[in-house]
């Protein structure tokens, strides 16, 4: 049995930021991640991020990742356990014990406070042929192309025009693949117009009100059949068309990766604006189970920039709860962090998330 004050599951932007803030205040932290490298999604994001200077706008995601890693390495009281899968979490009186597999060893890690920052999982779409080789999630493709520098194929059909679909299309083009089309079931493009614009001006058609009907191929994808759909999502017969492609990339949204959170017994609520079932949490990001916090995509699908702010918030809240920060000082820091997060939740893309987050916090008061 190992002991620490604050255990964090997931070394993405949320987990890293929480570790940095808590350690700065003096908290002893253990940060576990199943990958061989910390950073979560950030190391796949080779594009420049939005936001303001305080959110590192204009800096590429990968460079924000390096920055966070540098900051965390300066903290002596943070231990990072890589290659470490957290397989379970158990409550014992006022503390929690994590089951961690590292080097084929089962380690029990006992902590007074736990942050779950496990990120998200990709939604799949089922259509005849979706299990053929060549149908892949956008996350997997991003890892292949941007981390391992391998092209998954030559001619790609992108399914979904949210920011993920648009960005991964652009990155595939940069890597030398042809993106034959982007299809979107809704009548309008889901992601930012500026992302759509930079893909459109390379000649990639973005087909709205269109979906994949089926995919054919012997052992792997050889062609995809598209079909237009009406307002009620009914396929319009006669609008089918075939495209020769060898990759179908699914970018159909993300859902919070909530297994560990379910196990703790914390209460959930369904918030479509935040990607589905999310743990109810208060303004400190603490769930309905005392001592269990959530941040980042698990607390609602948003962005790395919001994940960083939520992680920081947890870091401060935990330091305060453990007596490392006085209430007044903690409050000032939390106010500053929250206002930075709020800046990101404005406008047509953010306002629904802002309202959803506010409602979550209201619900936590009545739980």
């Amino acid at each position, binding site marked *: 049995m190992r002991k620490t004050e604050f255990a964090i599951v997931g070394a993405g932007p949320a987990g890293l930021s929480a570790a940095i803030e808590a350690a700065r205040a003096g908290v002893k932290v253990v940060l576990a991640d199943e990958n061989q490298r910390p950073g979560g999604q950030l190391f796949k994001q080779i594009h420049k991020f939005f936001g303001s200077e305080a959110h590192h706008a204009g800096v*590429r995601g990968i460079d924000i990742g390096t920055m966070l890693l540098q900051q965390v390495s300066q903290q002596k009281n943070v231990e990072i356990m890589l290659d470490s899968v957290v397989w379970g979490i158990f409550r014992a009186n006022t503390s929690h014990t994590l089951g961690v597999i590292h080097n084929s060893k089962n380690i029990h890690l006992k902590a007074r406070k736990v942050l779950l920052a496990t990120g998200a999982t990709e939604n799949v779409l089922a259509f005849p042929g979706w299990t053929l080789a060549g149908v892949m999630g956008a996350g997997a493709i991003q890892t292949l192309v941007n981390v391992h520098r391998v092209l998954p194929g030559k001619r790609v059909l992108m399914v979904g025009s949210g920011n993920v679909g648009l960005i991964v299309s652009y990155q595939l083009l940069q890597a030398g693949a042809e993106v034959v089309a982007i299809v979107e079931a809704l009548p309008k493009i889901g992601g*930012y117009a500026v992302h759509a614009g930079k893909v459109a001006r390379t000649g990639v058609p973005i087909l709205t009100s269109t979906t994949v009907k089926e995919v054919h191929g012997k052992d792997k994808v050889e062609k995809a059949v598209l079909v237009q759909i009406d307002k009620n999502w009914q396929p319009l017969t006669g609008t089918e068309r075939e495209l020769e492609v060898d990759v179908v990339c699914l970018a159909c949204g993300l859902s919070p990766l909530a297994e560990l959170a379910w196990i703790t017994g914390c209460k959930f609520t369904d918030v479509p604006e935040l990607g589905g079932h999310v743990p109810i949490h208060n303004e400190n990001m603490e769930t309905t189970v005392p001592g269990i916090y959530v941040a980042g995509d698990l607390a609602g699908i948003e962005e790395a920039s919001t994940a960083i702010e939520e992680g920081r918030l947890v870091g401060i809240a935990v330091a305060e709860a453990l007596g490392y920060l006085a209430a007044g000082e903690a409050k000032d820091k939390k106010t500053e962090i929250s206002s930075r997060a709020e800046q990101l939740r404005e406008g047509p893309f953010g306002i629904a998330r802002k309202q959803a987050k506010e409602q979550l916090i209201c619900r936590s008061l009545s739980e």
Partner: protein
Amino acid sequence: MTLLKDGFFDPEELENLPGVPSKKRLIQGPVVVIECAQEIPCNPCEEACHKKAIQIGDSIIDLPILDADKCSGCGLCIASCPGQAIFVVDTTYSDKEAAIQLPYEFLPYPEEEQLVNGLNRAGEKVCSAKVLKVLNHKKFDRTAVITIVVPIQYAMEVRNIALR
């Protein structure tokens, strides 16, 4: 709105943006054209311009507003935009030609003097273009800023290039 359906602008959609200079200003010489139409949380362009020609203000979702009289068309803001929505257009390059500065992130970069295809916002080839300059400052962080020369009637149409 073709912007949200197809991913590119109607000419009218474009003219009404606060980041797009008036026709009058466009014929006076190099000036920035900011094709940013949605209230997204973003403001690096404002900070990139030392002449304070771009204003967004405290609420970072507001659209960038251009004060075209302050803009010299230097192009420093182009690479700062994570949306690659900023261009500089000079309709006074010559009698019949305009120069366009645009962001470019595909390898290989074109050579200076090279002839390339000028593409419109939908990626269609509309003319031939000559590459004048390829800038790849460290400050641009791997977004090259490329200056091309196109027939003047395409000054507000060409927004990308394709190597031949």
